[in-house]
């Protein structure tokens, strides 16, 4: 699909895996921020709403050489031929021309789940159940984010609503709305500052600089999806988990 790139804005994320301690604060804050529901029985993780899922990686070695790393995985917001956008029959998933955020239009989604099958990062989630919030927690729902209905797909949208709020605020103050920046909930919650967020096209931004760092890599680069989420690590064995090695693909071991 031909996509017009006439924007000076390209939101991106850089996650420093050497700083990540796997505490899960990013994932929890994501759920709270985006009104992600709970199931009555959360033991079935294959149907849990985890827009930002944390994988535990290991180095295939025994103690005392055994090492672990944690890899938070939000939506990659693929920039090239976004797999989920091109397959959606009802145009319910879109990639913004300005900023490149991949979003889901819940009220248009018919729930065919073709996008879920198309995404290699497992970043898309279907509402298998009616959304349920334990008694009393409805009081804490974020009024800036709509709750979703059963039968539609949802996903990380880089806290798109925070960008909208930041633009509104800038407009109110009479500032240039095209220059606003914002911080998604996960980056805000990370206690070690491992998650950076900003404009990849702004050469002065942290994310633009870090994305060019020699430690930087992206997941499944050989597929050509051009994710806008970069990872940093100085450990070679962590970097090896970024792709399937052509001749010796490692057996699945993370979770």
């Amino acid at each position, binding site marked *: 699909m031909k996509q017009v790139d006439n924007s000076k804005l390209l939101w991106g994320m850089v996650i420093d895996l050497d700083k990540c301690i796997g505490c899960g604060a990013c994932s929890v804050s994501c759920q709270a921020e985006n009104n992600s529901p709970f199931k009555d029985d959360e033991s079935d993780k294959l149907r849990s709403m985890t827009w930002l899922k944390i994988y535990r990686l290991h180095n295939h070695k025994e103690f005392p050489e055994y090492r672990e790393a944690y890899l938070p995985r939000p939506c990659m917001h693929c920039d090239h031929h976004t797999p989920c956008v091109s397959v*959606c029959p009802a145009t319910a998933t879109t990639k913004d021309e300005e900023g490149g955020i991949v979003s889901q239009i819940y009220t248009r989604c*018919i729930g065919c789940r073709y996008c879920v099958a198309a995404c290699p990062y497992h970043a898309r989630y279907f509402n298998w159940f009616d959304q349920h919030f334990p008694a009393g927690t409805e009081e804490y729902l974020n009024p800036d984010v709509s709750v979703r209905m059963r039968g539609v797909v949802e996903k990380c949208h880089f806290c798109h609503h925070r960008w909208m709020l930041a633009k509104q605020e800038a407009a109110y103050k009479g500032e240039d709305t095209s220059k606003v920046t914002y911080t998604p909930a996960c980056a805000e919650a990370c206690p070690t500052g491992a998650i950076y967020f900003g404009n990849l096209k702004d050469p002065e931004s942290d994310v633009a600089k870090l994305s060019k760092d020699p430690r930087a890599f992206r997941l499944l680069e050989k597929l050509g999806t051009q994710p806008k989420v970069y990872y940093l690590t100085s450990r070679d064995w962590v970097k090896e988990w970024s792709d399937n*090695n052509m001749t010796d693909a490692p057996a699945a071991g993370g979770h």
Partner: protein
Amino acid sequence: MLNWNCDKELYPDGLPRCSLAKFSPVVLIGGALLTWGAIGAIICLGYGLNKTGMNDYFALGLWIVFDLSIIALGAGAFFTGFLNYVVGRKELKDVINAAVIIGFICYSGAVAMLGIDIGQPIRGWFIFWHANVHSMLTEVTFCITCYLGVLLVEYLPLILENRVAQKQRFVRLLSHNFHEFMFIFAGTGTFLSFFHQGSLGGMFGVLFARPFSFREGFLIWPWTFFLFIWSAIAAGPAFTTLIVSLTEKISGRKLIPYSVKMFYGKVSGWLLLTYIIAKTIDTLYWALSTLPRMGVTFHSLYAEGPYGLWLVWLELGLFGWLPALALVYPKVRKNPALLMWAMVLDVLGVIFNRFVFVIQTQAIPVLPFEKFMGYMFTIPELGIAVAVIGYGLLVFGLSYRYLPVFPREKELNPVEG
């Protein structure tokens, strides 16, 4: 006292039919399967798709395998229409009605099942309203819907040919005029079917981030686009022949000349042989060229879980090369039992191919730190799938009982005629 022949006025002119008592198993089995499906549908629509075995790793399951399979097997309808009306193979007039009914059952069943499969059935029309022209699924939806309309138009004259209905002058004229213009619908059906059969393959071939199903191709069409059409027209006529033969077995009457079955065997055989040559080349190119460029190896895709290399040998060998070579061999076609077995393998091959594309594509992890996933359907999910078989049994059974489906039935059964 119950009259078991109370419906004889509805029988096709001059053709005997069994009593209602003998026919009742068809109604009972079909009705039972439909009831199971109806209960499954109520559960899945009422409580949600959490009542299925699907999850976020297996977003597509048994229903899509069933959909893809029955749409491929229903290809006998358009292909018979194409051969009869466009190519001019007039001997296929003997089987065209049966092929249309089977096609109608397959397509309407698939559409009904898709209506339950989508999470928001009431929004199904959004595909037409907010159509994404880049999506293969959009193309599939448009063409299947249109083609179902064509099949309905093709089926309608046959319904109107019921003996009681023909007593009305208007119905007589209408059905006659329908027949006069049927070549237009056959041509339209061929055009529509070509695209949606292909797009069903394209749906998986375009998944460039899923190396298991991704295929390169010609312009915007991945090779699976062409391979799905090819396999559907290789299996569709075989499936039609098998259903007609099964009807002959159950009814105890000869319905079409054996020469038609042999002709279909020959057509299926040559199409299957050319398909399996193309499929083998496609598999080799994918394994040796496409996959390494995507960072995975052929063996790594068959290394985990129950989905090993045996799937490849089964699909290409037992369900591909074997029936293809058997069907192109005239001596096999002359032997009714061998012909039927070769056709069974041909049909199983296309079902197996659709299963592999839907299920294994999702079972094989793409992220190196993800695990192989298994999938098992639930009872309500299975009920909805087998309801299509029950529906088919009822529609085909009732059509055979009350409509002149086989124009040469009387001639082929002179004693009873």
